[in-house]
């Protein structure tokens, strides 16, 4: 959906939201200084501060996320560790081994092997991504013609070694999860835009 930020006049003017902070004049002589000190001392500003923090303590509106136990939701288009998806109906792997992702990867971290199987179909035997090099740019997901390689929501990829790999078995949706209908389509890079069915036109055959 096309969205354009409405233009705002960012120049300082009467209409803009900018305003000058009200700074009172600096005291010039001793008596003014004394008056300032006395006013600040007895205006009770310190107690305002005390009340604010006490109020927060009584309200007990805690914002802590106890991270390993609780996690914040991440955006659906977040680009974390990759997934390889399967076709919904047949359960075959979507990847057709075209090698576009391997080719486009700007950090050269995808490595794949293919062979021609008994049915003369191209089969992907190996597929691994070196997460030590991957910059999670999302190009692979964008270029994939089959929506096969996508980004998943798994952002915890700390490991004992600098370079660690996700291999095909880690990324591919297991068949039982697919049967249970738990394979999630990825709405991010390369995904079908919602409502794109409407914009599909017949291929013109007659020139």
């Amino acid at each position, binding site marked *: 959906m096309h969205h354009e930020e409405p233009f705002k006049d960012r120049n300082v003017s009467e209409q803009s939201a900018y305003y000058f902070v009200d700074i009172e004049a600096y005291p010039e002589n001793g008596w003014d200084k004394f008056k300032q*000190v006395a006013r600040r001392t007895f205006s009770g500003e*310190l107690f305002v*501060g*005390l009340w*604010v*923090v*006490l109020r*927060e*303590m009584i309200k*007990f*509106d*805690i*914002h*802590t996320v*106890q991270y390993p136990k609780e996690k914040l939701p991440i955006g659906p288009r977040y680009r974390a560790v990759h997934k390889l998806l399967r076709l919904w109906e047949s359960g075959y792997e979507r990847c057709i081994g075209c090698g576009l992702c391997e080719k486009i990867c700007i950090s050269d971290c995808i490595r794949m092997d293919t062979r021609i199987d008994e049915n003369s179909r191209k089969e992907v035997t190996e597929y691994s991504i070196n997460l030590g090099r991957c910059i999670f740019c999302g190009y692979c997901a964008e270029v994939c013609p089959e929506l096969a390689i996508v980004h998943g929501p798994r952002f915890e990829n700390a490991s004992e070694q600098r370079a660690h790999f996700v291999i095909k078995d880690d990324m591919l949706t297991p068949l039982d999860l697919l049967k249970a209908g738990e394979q999630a389509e990825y709405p991010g890079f390369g995904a079908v835009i919602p409502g794109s069915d409407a914009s599909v036109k017949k291929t013109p055959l007659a020139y």
Partner: protein
Amino acid sequence: MDAAFIIETIVKIVVIMLIFSALAGFGTYFERKVLAFMQRRLGPMHVGPYGLLQIMADGIKLFTKEDIVPQNVVKPIFKIAPVITAATAFMAAAAIPFWPQFTVMGYTVHPIVADINVGILYVLGVMAIGLYGPLLGGMASANKWSLISAARSAAIFISYEVITGLSLLAPLMMVGSLSLIDINNYQAGGITNWIVWSQPVAFILFWIAAFAETGRTPFHLVANDHEIIDGFGTEYSGMRWGLFFIGEYANMFFISFVMAIIFLGGFGDGTIAGAVQLILKVAFFFFFFLWTRAAWPDVRPDQLMWLCWKVLMPIAVLNVIVTGIVMMF
């Protein structure tokens, strides 16, 4: 001096040491929790239920950590400085009555190590010696942050000694005794007899000075994390740093006791109710130390000196003079 007296005194000393070392640990726990709640956080949660065993974890960590004595430090002084802080804090406790006297199995216990007739003078004096902890530690550390902190602590402690002394002078003139027990008994008549009603100015002054004496926010310049790292504690690690810490927290508790006894009636007439009240008063003062840390910013060193010499000291002197004139007529 008979043996029973010596044994009783030693037992009292050990009990006070143990209780207040443990309280210092719990103090850190409460501080983290209170600060966290005031900042909409949860604080320690993972070690034990609600993070209660965090103290244990910290203790084990502090005790088993490598004791690092860096190059270029003045070794004997560097090593002795934390001991001074902790030792003076606990020595000051000797003249503080923590609880009214009570009788167990026909034996009357006075929960005060030594009821000396110059009690408050002794407490303040020994607490003032505690200055040598940060001062020597900072100077011996061969670290410029520590050195700045040492200079600041010398300036602050000595300046605010004046305030504590002068502000206490007025109540002491009214009571006519330096013993904390006498001061307490002077107010035994109930809440209307509390010195805070007759000496509100002295109370506020002493309270302000207590923040400087214990080095707590808003007068936390001695070890201000955001400008001089940990001040005199920068080069310390392990148990030596832990001693500084215990000293600071024990000091907070003791000064809370002193304030509660001198101004807020202490344990009153010595019944259990009065004793519980004393604990509540101390708890309030301790909580206030944490409360201000969450609420108030630190002041600059020059502002602190300005406050001491140009504002608080004249007020304290005036207070003494006015008290004297009122007492004369």
